[in-house]
């Protein structure tokens, strides 16, 4: 349990937050809670992303022009923000994917040689 907890808060995961969020958003417009639920579901609970970490990342991606956001009124005094990937965001996602492949490949090779 403790190992799992460490894994959930690891630095490696922190470097992939942008990648996983953009991967989910390339499927279509989504809101924050939906993103965190899908992350948990698709990773079988191994990739847990707390709102405190997810929202600053979403705001940064929006600020950099990789995401568009739309506010929708869903109830009395309740606003929901939908995030959508932009063309720039897709280019950035491709770059992140490539970086991820290179890094994971390199680490696998290192592991093979050192195990």
């Amino acid at each position, binding site marked *: 349990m403790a190992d799992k907890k460490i894994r959930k808060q690891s630095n490696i995961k922190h470097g992939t937050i942008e990648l996983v969020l953009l991967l989910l958003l390339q499927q279509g417009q989504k*809101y*924050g*809670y939906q993103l*965190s639920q899908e992350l948990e579901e698709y990773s079988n609970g191994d990739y847990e992303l*707390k*709102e*405190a*970490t997810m*929202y*600053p*990342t979403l*705001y*940064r991606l929006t600020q950099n022009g990789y995401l568009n956001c739309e*506010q929708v009124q*869903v*109830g009395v005094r*309740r*606003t*929901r*923000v939908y995030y959508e990937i932009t063309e720039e965001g897709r280019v950035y996602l491709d770059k992140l994917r490539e970086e991820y492949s290179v890094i994971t490949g390199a680490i696998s090779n290192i592991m093979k040689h050192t195990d």
Partner: protein
Amino acid sequence: MDNNTAISKYIRKAKRIYHGDRKTKQRFIDDLQDALLCFSETHPGCTYADLTTSFGSPDEIREAFLKDSSKELKKRNLLIYRIVILCSVLIAIAVLAFTVHLAIEQYHYSQGYFIKTIYDYEKTDSSEETEPIESFHFD
């Protein structure tokens, strides 16, 4: 404690702890409120402890925001630092130039060289170059 009370408490604490940009804060509170309400719809009867387990404590929120904004803050501080340095250099150059000018003038004055220039203000035609009409030279 019913759902709404727990959500209100969580939002209140998050608001109190996070002191960032007002626009970002409002947006985050809206996002967070929606997420908490979504959670309470799927988890009826959830308590404040349930919310902190699922969403993290309000302290974690502050830390996450601070960590994220620290890069921006560093950039801004660097920019301010550069502007201050530039202004200081410009002021130093201006002071130095003025001092040098004053020293030269004082030197000339001490050598008995003094030029008094009187312009002819009676002239109204500005197309003509104004020439000093009187010049004194003490040697």
